[in-house]
């Protein structure tokens, strides 16, 4: 029995040693981690996004007929222009 125990201990010790050395060798050949910010661009290529076809135009006549019960017309204003003078801007909006 003592002889069997002795052989078992030798087998476990040998297995552990082989496993340890195998793992060491595997890690030694694995890729190393890279510090943040250490990446370098491969090239300056930018992916282009395809532009969709033109949007359909608004059917103003249809809108007009939808509002035919109203005697006034609506219109789209041009964008706000910047003031030509420096400080307080004159604005109207009720008070």
């Amino acid at each position, binding site marked *: 029995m003592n002889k069997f125990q002795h052989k078992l201990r030798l087998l476990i010790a040998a297995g552990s040693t082989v496993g340890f050395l195998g793992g060491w060798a595997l890690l030694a050949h694995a890729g190393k981690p890279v510090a943040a910010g250490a990446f370098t661009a491969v090239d300056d290529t930018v992916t282009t996004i395809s532009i969709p076809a033109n949007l359909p135009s608004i059917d103003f006549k249809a809108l007009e007929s939808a509002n035919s019960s109203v005697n006034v*017309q609506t219109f*789209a204003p041009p*964008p*706000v222009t910047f003031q030509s003078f420096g400080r307080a801007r004159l*604005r*109207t*909006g009720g*008070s």
Partner: protein
Amino acid sequence: MDYQQFRAMNSDIILAAEGSRDSLTLGFKLARDFINASEARFTRFTDTSELTRLNRAAGAWFQSSPELFDVVQLACALAAETNGLFDPTMLAALEAAGYDKSMDDIRAYGTSASSRSSGSTRSAFRAIQLDETHRAIHLPFGTRLDLGGIAKGWIAEQAALVLAEYADACAVSAGGDMFLVGLPAAEESWPIGLEDPRAPDRDLTTLHVGPGAVATSSIAKRRWQQGRRQQHHIIDPRTGEPAETDWLSVSVIAPHAALAEVYAKALLIGGSREAERIAAQRPEITYAAVDFNGQLWGSAQTEEVTNVIGVEYA
């Protein structure tokens, strides 16, 4: 362009003028003095103003100043012209809706009035008598005037004419209701931002306006809570209640400030259904209305407002 800004009439006042600095300094002072004196005369929020004394004298003849007589005469004439859509005798209705103290005070302390019937009589303005010879006004017993908007426009116009004596070109804006004299150097018009009533810090577009007046009536401002109801200060004389309209604001460009004020209010109350009929009364005015979606509306010629509008100043 030189500017001076201050607060009066519960509004931000802007004086803008071009000319020599020394001359403008005096012009600004005189215009400001005129505005402050006029506010003291026309306010309904003090016991001592001339307007309050006139209202207290209802039922008897009241000897008035030339200034008060002018504004009351204008108000009555324009009330008749708009068939009562603008009515200066709506003070009781305004107070019943909760507008019983200045808007600065309502914003600070809330309204004290609870909802009640105003007892306003439709078209009470028709019974006001004016004696031009003796410069006297007779209000029917129980009638009281609120000259709010029309007085503010009139004051802006008169102050601009005072300032114009000392300037090459000038503008006086009282809370956005303004009168413009001349044109800024090298400009063909005055650029006026049209405020978005849904987002007052933003402009919907720029109006290019010649000499004359611009005024805006809005239900988006001067609002308050009365019980469970949201109230505003534009009273529909046909109901005696805050107007129910499909527009948030209406801006009017006109040769004179009183005209711009009155038609802005009448068009706002009338809304899209009555706009064409109301505007047809005065072909010389141009209006731009903003609905609840921020969409601009106007008459056939109104699109020019956002390009160039020239108003003949008489």
